[in-house]
């Protein structure tokens, strides 16, 4: 039985594509056959984050319009044999993303893949609605910041009322909170909303905390999903989140500020600043 997972947030720039790339790669690393779909028609970026931007020939819209087969459009990841990418169209033909077309593609993919990850665009326009519509589970990417939390709540409202499961009265979409760009240091100083604050407000179960990390930019620079950088803080935080998603019990890390020794305090050199 295949599972459709939407990675969504409402707000832009919170880490949806980074998380989609990391989660799909992490699932594939663990041997699950996974496909990740870019729903951001006209502003495709999943391909560049995944490092396959030069291998795009056909896209999602081509498949919907019958101009290419799914097999032609799917890009096989070079690092992980179980991972495939379906890129978005870069032409601004947003209306091509029809409910029937999306459903057809998802149905076809679900015959072959264990997990279908839908990378939603920001906002609540067609692309975002389509990415959510057929989901079984949703990962709500949220930054500990007022506009992101508010938008996430709005998205939760839409998930509970406008999606297929909501309309047809099936069991509700399973929701997971993924808190990204978290800075335990600033939380300790009272400068940033804490995990508990965000959990209190959104009232959905937490699947992971991804710390603000230099590894994320490093990963996107080279087109390598950050989860493959297993020694990095963000990479291991995504590993934890994926393990929890698959039902494993892992304690939350990166909640609290890293205790700095007196020398570190004085000379202020943190781990990630050291040359690799």
């Amino acid at each position, binding site marked *: 039985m295949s599972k459709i997972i939407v990675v969504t947030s409402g707000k832009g720039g919170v880490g949806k594509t980074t998380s989609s790339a990391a989660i799909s790669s992490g699932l594939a690393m663990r041997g699950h056959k996974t496909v990740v779909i870019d729903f951001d028609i006209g502003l495709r970026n999943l391909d560049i984050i995944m490092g396959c931007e030069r291998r795009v020939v056909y896209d999602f819209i081509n498949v919907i319009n019958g101009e290419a087969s799914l097999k032609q459009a799917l890009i096989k990841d070079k690092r992980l044999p179980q991972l495939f990418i379906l890129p978005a169209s870069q032409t601004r033909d947003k209306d091509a993303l029809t409910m029937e077309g999306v459903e057809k593609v998802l149905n076809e993919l679900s015959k072959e893949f264990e997990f279908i990850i839908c990378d939603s665009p920001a906002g609540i326009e067609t692309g975002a609605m389509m990415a959510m519509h057929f989901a079984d589970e949703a990962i709500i990417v949220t930054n500990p*910041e*007022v506009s992101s*939390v*508010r938008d996430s*709540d*709005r998205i939760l*409202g839409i998930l509970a*009322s406008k999606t297929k499961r909501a309309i047809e009265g099936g069991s509700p979409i399973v929701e997971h909170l993924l808190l990204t760009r978290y800075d335990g240091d600033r*939380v300790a*100083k*009272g*400068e*940033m*909303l*804490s995990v508990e*604050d965000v959990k*209190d*407000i959104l009232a959905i179960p937490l699947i992971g905390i991804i710390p603000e990390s230099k590894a994320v930019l490093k990963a996107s620079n080279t087109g390598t999903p950050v989860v493959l950088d297993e020694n990095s803080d963000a990479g291991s935080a995504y590993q934890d989140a994926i393990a929890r998603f698959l039902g494993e019990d892992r304690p939350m890390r990166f909640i609290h500020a890293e205790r700095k020794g007196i020398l570190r305090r004085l000379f202020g050199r943190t781990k990630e600043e050291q040359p690799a």
Partner: protein
Amino acid sequence: MSILNFLRRRTATASVAKERLQIIISHERSQRNTPDYLPKLQEEILAVIAKYIPIDREKVTVNLERMGGSAVLELNVTMPEESIA
């Protein structure tokens, strides 16, 4: 440590953020399941009332509450004092 804590409290903006979020989100959630026509309905009802009584639009609330199988549309208009006399 007390001086540090004092300084810390002055820069602790996270609690302000949480409070603001709780207020706006509870407000937005209460409107989440209201039908799309409600704002327009409110406008039109108000226009009719305003034809007869000078009312302060800030002092009007329209609420739609679901109770079991039925819904209650509640309209609260605060009348200006002169109009009662």
